[in-house]
């Protein structure tokens, strides 16, 4: 069966510090991978999307970046965090097109101080 791992679960970082959040998927090949951010009481904002190794699409401009060094690994990074980067970050995977469901990890709660 397929599983998705996302870590860390919670993270507290000072403003201006770097960030690296990692997501890995097991049990499937060549998945579509996604990074979302969810502000408190809000919906999901798609940040990045990848259909294959080295292929990253960005939904909104920001000081975050994403990389996909391996087929089932998706990393969200920042060189210098801003206060506005606080939120709940979710990784997800799917296969095929939008007729297929997305499967989510349990998220990382990021607090910027």
């Amino acid at each position, binding site marked *: 069966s397929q599983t998705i791992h*996302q870590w860390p679960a919670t993270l507290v970082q000072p403003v201006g510090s770097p960030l690296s959040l990692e997501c890995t998927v097991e049990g499937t090949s060549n998945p*579509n991978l*996604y990074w*979302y951010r969810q502000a408190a*009481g*809000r*919906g*999901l904002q*798609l940040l990045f*999307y990848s*259909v294959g190794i080295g292929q990253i*699409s960005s*939904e909104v401009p920001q000081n975050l970046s994403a990389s996909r060094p391996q087929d089932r690994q998706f990393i969200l990074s920042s060189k210098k965090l801003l206060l506005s980067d606080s939120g*709940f970050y*979710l990784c*997800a995977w*799917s296969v*095929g*097109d*939008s*007729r*297929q*469901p*997305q*499967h*989510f*990890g*349990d*998220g990382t*709660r990021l607090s910027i101080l």
Partner: protein
Amino acid sequence: SQQGEEDPQALSIQEGENATMNCSYKTSINNLQWYRQNSGRGLVHLILIRSNEREKHSGRLRVTLDTSKKSSSLLITASRAADTASYFCATDGHLGYSTLTFGKGTMLLVSP
């Protein structure tokens, strides 16, 4: 930009009652999905309805889709305290062929 908008934003009911949540969207879609999110957790896919379908059932869930009104509803029958969660609709995204655009969600509280 948000495609789907859920209504109401929050809903509080007693166990055993039915809960109905609505979703409206703006542009034509190929399908619409409903997800559930427990507090502090990731989203879980509940059900998908295609644009050529009008109604779909899964256990205690019933989803309807009216493409002429660009709206969908999710009905949870005989609700339980364990149904307490946020519920989101999602429609075809515009970034890529597999992306989805999520609404802001309805927070459902089911009291024992």
